[in-house]
């Protein structure tokens, strides 16, 4: 039997990279991609743990994550489109009027 620890480690690394991406990139679309990267990292961990425990619940969870991600992407991109239409900018820093 293969050990799933490397998969979990990879998942953690990808998650951290995604988090850093969310924090550093300013293009809303790229930020979104980084969020997707984090979701995918989670999925990897779920699938790995499914194998570890020998049941399919982890895979089902990953499946649901994908469904939710799809819905999220649709709405999120629509929001980005709307903001771009009015502000002519996809930068998350430009939408910073709601402040002190």
């Amino acid at each position, binding site marked *: 039997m293969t050990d799933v620890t490397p998969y979990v480690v990879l998942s953690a690394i990808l998650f951290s990279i995604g988090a850093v991406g969310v*924090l550093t990139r300013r293009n809303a679309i790229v930020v979104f991609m980084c969020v997707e990267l984090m979701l995918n990292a989670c999925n990897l961990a779920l699938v790995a743990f499914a194998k570890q425990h020998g049941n399919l619940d982890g895979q089902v969870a990953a499946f649901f994550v994908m469904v939710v991600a799809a819905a999220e992407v649709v709405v999120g991109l629509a929001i980005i489109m709307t903001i771009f239409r009015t502000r002519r900018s996809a930068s*998350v820093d430009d939408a*910073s*009027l709601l*402040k*002190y």
Partner: protein
Amino acid sequence: MYSLSEAAHQVPVIEPSAADGTFSLLWLVIGLPLLGAAVLLLGGRATDRWGHWLGTLMSAASFVVSLLLFVELLGREAGDRSVTQHLYDWIAVGDLQVGMDLLYDPLSALFLLLITGVGTLIHVYSIGYMEHDPRRRRFFAYLNLFVAAMLMLVLAENYLGLFLGWEGVGLASYLLIGFWQHKPSAAAAAKKAFVINRVGDIGMALAIALLFTTFGTTSFTAISQVSGAAEQDTLTAVGLLLLLAACGKSAQVPLQAWLLDAMEGPTPVSALIHAATMVTAGVYLVVRSNFIFELAPTAQTVVVIVATVTLLWGAVIGCAKDDIKKALAGSTMSQIGYMMLGAGLGVAGYAFAIFHLITHGFFKANMFLGAGSVMHGMNDDVDMRRYGALRHAMPVTFLTFAMGYLAIIGFPGFSGFWSKDKIIETALAENWVVGVLALLGAGITGFYMTRLMLLTFFTTRRWKEDVHPHESPGVMTVPLVVLAALSVLGGVLLLGDWIVEWLAPVVGEAPHHEPPLPIIVITLLTVATVAVGVAAAWFLVGKREVPLTAPQDVSFATRAARADMYGDAINDVLVARPGAATVRGLTAGDRSVVDGLFTGGSAGVKATGNVLRRLQNGFVRSYALSVLGGVLLVVLALLAVNLA
């Protein structure tokens, strides 16, 4: 000073029987004037035409009922002359059970007759006096309200009911002093009377509360039965608080300042409320609370001191006033001082205090109405320096006024002679210092009343040019005649010590004290003192030219008397200014300390917020960083827990 301890056990216990037969009409005495007031106040202009008749009728009906009750009471045995009527449960809260109970005994019976009798006469008089006032109906409504409240005061079976009447007469007094509210002076006087009365009412309220906590009841009957069991100090405190209340209502020093200003009200009001009835409520309170005062000699001593000071204080003020009503008001203050003195002397003096109260009610009402009649004829001028030689212009007024005058100075045979003489006599018997001062007061009374009489009805004409003095109409003179007759004949109440025996079931019977001098000597001394006062007035006023305006280069004593013995100034310095200063200080303290605490606190919060809000920089990524920081903390915590 003097000792009354041996009298303590003689305080009679009130043991009333339930009202039946004629006595079940007791509530009507209060109900009728109250009904009149309600109809007149609620009826509005519809009652304008006949309102004064209704008011008078109600008062008269009340008098008739009082008379019936009195006759009924006369027919009873001496020990059986106390009746209560329970109308309904008034307050029932926990231990505080107060019924709307009425108590009819010899003391209230006399008051009922005085209030309704004099009240009715003054109602009749007012029909003429207020004839041209567009708000006459309202005036009669207030008068009826006053009569009802005053009757409630003297008929109540417990202190709370008395307090109800007490406040009711205060309200009526306020409304009537300020009846001519368009005059700023009248409005101010009404306010002044109300405020000063409130000071006394604090004493009343505290006394009631103290009585309730001590005895668990406010009923006269109940307290009179158990008052001996209470501690001396408690009773002294109650007595002093009741005295404070009495001072406020009866214009005794130090709460005397309002009475002179109260003369801004219509003259019938001055006669009824501020001479005959309401101001004597304090005397009634002290006499009614005899079961407290008899057991609290200290409080009694204070009553005597206050009374003595007031009787001289008022008399001195009366000497210097040029305003006829204010001179009479000073006199009223002084005479109430006599009554209080009598009441303060204990069992020996209660009956005489009430006796003097009744005779004073007659002759002072008579004189006030007479003064009103004079003003009526002199275009409402009150300055005695513009009167003079009115005896020919107003013969009826003059004659009736003269009767009142002779009564008040204590001319032998007139009612005032009997009543005042008895008080002075008792005072001398109890304590010669007080007695001598009371004697001195009688002398001053002789002086200022003679001065008033001379300035008004004798000497030379000093009328203003457009004044044509005339006799008042019959509706005004008839009450004058009746009251004059009563002033002359009031002394019959003392015939065979009738009033002493009559009141004995209520106030007790004093053991006979041998006065330091034979009674006849005291009487002669009193008459002589009065004669000196009258003679002084004759030489100082009657024999000289009366200047039209008051001379200014006068002695300090005169200036002080003119300024009401600096009563207002004393109030100002002792109460008003420290009060205002305290309020200013408190306001400043509130602004700087209390408000500062809050504004400072809010400013601090605001400043902190100003710093912290910089964190809300609007950049989503900054917020995301905070979220990641939170995640880090959670993971750290998880690890720490799991690894620990």
